[in-house]
């Protein structure tokens, strides 16, 4: 393990950015989201939760798939896929890192999503351990240890230093590139922080919820009367979906440019009333049905298809961001997954 002085972080970013495009939490207009590093970037490694998760790095909110160049009555098809060059995503929290796992099981199985695959393979992930969990956090519910995330490199921000541990060959290579800024360390400070954080984790108000209640009979859950009440305030916006690190639905759209057509995909939300709308209409015409779909997918359908892996990682973004404060915690608790009762 090595450590780098916080005062040298700017040099660190620059160093990495010399070789790789670097994506990390940056503040723009008061909010922290993942963004591409440049010398003007206001990097905020200290911030626990970016508004949007880092899934954009592999599965961008909108992404061109193919271009059609139109000249008179001639149409030329242009593949826009480029050979992916390695890039670095830095500051990924344990929950968000786990979310990549969830996404992989969607995009990297048959039919293989080459757009995702190329980026996933080219991406070098530097995770960041959590030093100050928030009341909305509940990753531990899903067996995630926020104090020691995986990834190509793991980092901890402790007492004026960024502690750095390479986990993979890719990580080792990156470590070499930045070693001039680092000093060796035994990592005791990291262990101390881990202990402290673990104490806090026990106190988290949502740490005891039990998603296992959703392992019960699927049809019973589906037809449960509680959904109506739970969803009644839902506005049908896409906030929960778009801040969620595991949501993977997208729509394919076309944009007419001045010389042809761009076919692109963009995130879609199962909360939208035009989600999967076809000529025959909407399969889920009411907001209750759409609301139910989202949580049934996260807690029932996905785990059933993926060996019990929930497609929720407990990042708590929806808890924080839902305009009317409806969220997965309330849903789990409503179905009895509340240990306090």
């Amino acid at each position: 393990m090595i450590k780098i002085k916080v005062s040298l972080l700017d040099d660190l970013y620059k160093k990495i950015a010399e070789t790789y495009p670097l994506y990390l939490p940056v503040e723009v207009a008061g909010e922290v989201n993942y963004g591409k590093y440049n010398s003007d970037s206001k990097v905020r490694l200290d911030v626990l939760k970016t508004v949007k998760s880092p899934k954009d790095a592999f599965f961008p909110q909108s992404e061109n798939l193919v271009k059609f160049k139109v000249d008179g009555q001639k149409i030329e098809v242009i593949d826009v896929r480029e050979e992916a060059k390695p890039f670095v995503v830095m500051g990924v929290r344990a929950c968000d890192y786990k979310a990549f796992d969830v996404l992989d099981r969607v995009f990297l199985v048959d039919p293989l999503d080459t757009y995702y695959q190329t980026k996933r393979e080219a991406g070098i992930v530097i995770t960041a351990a959590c030093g100050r969990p928030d009341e909305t956090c509940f990753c531990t519910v899903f067996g995630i240890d926020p104090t020691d995330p995986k990834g190509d490199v793991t980092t901890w921000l402790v007492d004026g230093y960024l502690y750095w541990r390479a986990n993979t060959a890719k990580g080792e290579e990156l470590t070499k590139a930045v070693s001039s800024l680092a000093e060796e360390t035994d990592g005791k400070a990291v262990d101390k922080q881990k202990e402290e954080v673990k104490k806090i984790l026990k106190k988290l108000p949502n740490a005891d919820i039990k998603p296992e209640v959703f392992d019960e009979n699927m049809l019973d859950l589906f037809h449960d009367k509680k959904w109506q009440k739970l969803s009644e305030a839902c506005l049908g916006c896409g906030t929960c979906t778009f801040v969620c690190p595991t949501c993977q639905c997208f729509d394919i759209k076309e944009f007419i440019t001045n010389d042809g057509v761009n076919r692109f995909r963009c995130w879609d939300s199962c909360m939208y009333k035009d989600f999967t709308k076809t000529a025959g209409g909407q399969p889920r015409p009411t907001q209750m049905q759409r609301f139910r779909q989202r949580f049934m997918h996260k807690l029932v359908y996905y785990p059933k298809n993926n060996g019990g892996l929930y497609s929720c990682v407990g990042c708590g973004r929806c808890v924080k961001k839902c305009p009317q404060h409806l969220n997965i915690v309330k849903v789990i608790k409503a179905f009895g997954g509340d240990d306090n009762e």
Partner: protein
Amino acid sequence: MQKIEELMYKRASEMLESGEVDRVIAWKKGETCYDVSPATFTKDNLEGFVYDAFCGANLSKYLVEESKKGGKILVFLKPCDTYSFNQLLSEHRIKRENVYVIGIECQGKIDANKLQKKGIDGILSVEEKGDKLTVKTLYGDKEIAFEEALSVKCETCKSKEFAVSDETIVLNEMRDNREKRFEAVERLEKMTEEERYAFWQAELSKCIRCNACRNVCPACTCTHCVFDNDKSGIAGKANADSFEEKLFHIIRSYHVAGRCTDCGECSRVCPQNIPLHLINRKYIKDMNEFYGEYQAGAAVTALNPIVDFTKEDVEAATVVGGKK
């Protein structure tokens, strides 16, 4: 505030009990202090009924669907919400005869997000003590002035009057910060074009097109929004280019111009805290300056300035100064 909640609870249960109303639309307690949700309550179930400083949501939009369902509804509206209600009435979106409105006192609502911006994280509970808030957190107790935690929409509260109500529950004099209403817009107006461009470019670059601003807006009640309609030519689901966000927010605010009551819900719900109300408020300020003071929702019968005109209206060139 607790006293108010008691009185509201009492009226709600009385009216449900007597059969005067069939349902009550109010706020429901959440898991933590701030995650209060709008909810409907019925005779047998008033559990979780709450009214405190976190009940910021404007309930009037829910009546569009609820008032169609039949039966009588009791709704609690804060002064600013009553304007939305009135505006919806004038657009024939709510069946007035099905709704009983109780106007309730509001001293401004607080925003948990703002606490976090002030460095208060890990919030467990919030307690009001005079004009101070005591916040219990995972990392110890913190104190903050109530004023500093005020939700953006309440910083410049436009009214302490109820535009409509069947009865009111008000115990204390309410605050009214309307003189500050246009300050932020004015600050932007004073900037150079370049600065304003940079400001909005940065703000809107955060937009994730989640449509929360649209879906919460009491003026956005279209059956089928142009932004969801592929035939409209402007349908878009993604922030595919920085132009998209400008188009979305300019047109969205234009579509509610003259109908927007300045309830501030758009800014409250924005997950990226984009000051969307400053767009709507610019239209309001312009309309006031160009065509005379107008407050949407103040009266049901009023003609909204964007469908109205006078022969002597100012020219665009005069007010915008586009001609060199």
